[in-house]
């Protein structure tokens, strides 16, 4: 490897890492948190069979899962912009990512809710708790425990999906890499470098996933 290339890689490392810390990580964290709220809501209205809302949830999941994330990003940023609702790119990114991820996670949470034995709800009602109390304290926590591994996987793939947000002018890691390539004409080395930084981030997440699973393992279901 030439000295020049090594110099470029060292120089670009912080230039990629900083936007990673400033944009990629917050984008992932905030969007995933919002996605979880959406997911639990959409899963619950389906599980509880709430008229109207259930149909809305099915429609939402159908549309979001059936269209590309990139298209959704463009609709939120450029599409709404045309209507005069010009969102800051970072906010547009958060909206598109969380709405997108929410649809996938909703299915995960719904399946987990259905895996909780019926007797858990019945036992709650038999000690005098209401349906909602039992849902909140007994059924939902168990479902989230079951959903933890697949949700962690979703989080990791979402981290990678944030690279698409470069398309709506958010200066996150991938865009930083693109800029460096435009300046240096070293696409192979720099794109591998940005890939390595994504890998670093997702490895950290995987580590926390393991720890989390262990911590939750204090009660295992038989």
């Amino acid at each position, binding site marked *: 490897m030439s000295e020049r290339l090594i110099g470029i890689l060292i120089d670009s490392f912080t230039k990629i890492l900083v936007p990673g810390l400033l944009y990629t990580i917050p984008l992932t964290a905030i969007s995933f948190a919002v996605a979880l709220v959406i997911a639990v809501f959409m899963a619950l209205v389906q599980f509880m069979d709430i008229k109207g809302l259930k149909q809305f949830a099915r429609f939402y999941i159908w549309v979001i899962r059936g269209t590309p994330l990139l298209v959704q990003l463009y609709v939120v940023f450029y599409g709404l912009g045309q209507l005069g609702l010009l969102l800051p790119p970072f906010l547009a990114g958060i909206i598109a990512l969380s709405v997108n991820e929410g649809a996938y996670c909703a299915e995960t949470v719904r399946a987990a809710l259905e895996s909780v034995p019926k*007797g*858990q709800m*019945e*036992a709650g009602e038999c*000690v*005098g708790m209401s349906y909602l109390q039992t849902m909140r304290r*007994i059924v939902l926590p168990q479902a989230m425990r079951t959903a933890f591994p697949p949700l962690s996987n979703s989080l990791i793939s979402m981290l990678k999906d944030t690279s698409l947000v470069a398309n709506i002018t958010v200066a996150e890691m991938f865009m930083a890499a693109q800029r460096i390539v435009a300046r240096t004409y070293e696409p192979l080395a720099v794109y591998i470098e940005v890939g390595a930084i994504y890998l670093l981030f997702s490895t950290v997440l995987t580590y926390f996933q393991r720890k989390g699973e262990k911590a939750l393992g204090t009660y295992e*279901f038989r």
Partner: protein
Amino acid sequence: MKILEAAHVSKSFDGQQVLKDVSLSVNSGDVIAILGPSGSGKTTFLRCINFLERADAGTIWFDGREYDLHSMRGSDISRIRMRTGFVFQNYNLFRNKTALQNVTEGLIVARHMPKEQAEQIAIEQLRRVDMQDRRDHFPSQLSGGQQQRVAIARAMATDPEVIYFDEPTSALDPELIGEVLSVMRDLASQGMTMVVVTHEMTFARNVSSRTILMEQGVIAEEAPTQEFFENPKTERTKAFIRTFMNR
């Protein structure tokens, strides 16, 4: 003193009538054993009178008021459930709660009792079923018999007027049945009102005050326990006792 009376309870599943006009009156201190072959409707009856299943017809009298089982309001259901207990065949302990939390949950959440007071009651009830040493264990860390004893403590903690048991020992390994039955025997001797669906004939005979035989969705015979076993009126009961006692 009469605690509750279920009358003319009927229930069908997919066009097949599982309960046909079943009635039961429960007095304070009664221990009622419900026997009967598999599929005769015992579980369905218990579930109907605790509203886990909505009956097609029938009434329930509780605390001076009569309710229509089919059209009963949610608020009335919760009010009665607050004062009854249910023990399931497969325990149904809350899997995400420790033994202690299983018992306090209904007190803290449904009855808004302060945590310390709830825990005090829970520890007392766990001691009663000899499970105080395992109070911080999760259900998955307990044997079937231990889980069922915690489930009984959970039902007892809410100070119910009556506890329904649906075959509380049927899911247990034979060597674990004794510990659960002995807890139930203690409760009975302390005057707890109990309705027990069971296949344990010896338990029914020695502990219950009244015995009922259910067959194909109807009550085939109901009598004071001694009379039921020593002087059964119907041929069905005679045959049933013979089959079970000879096993």
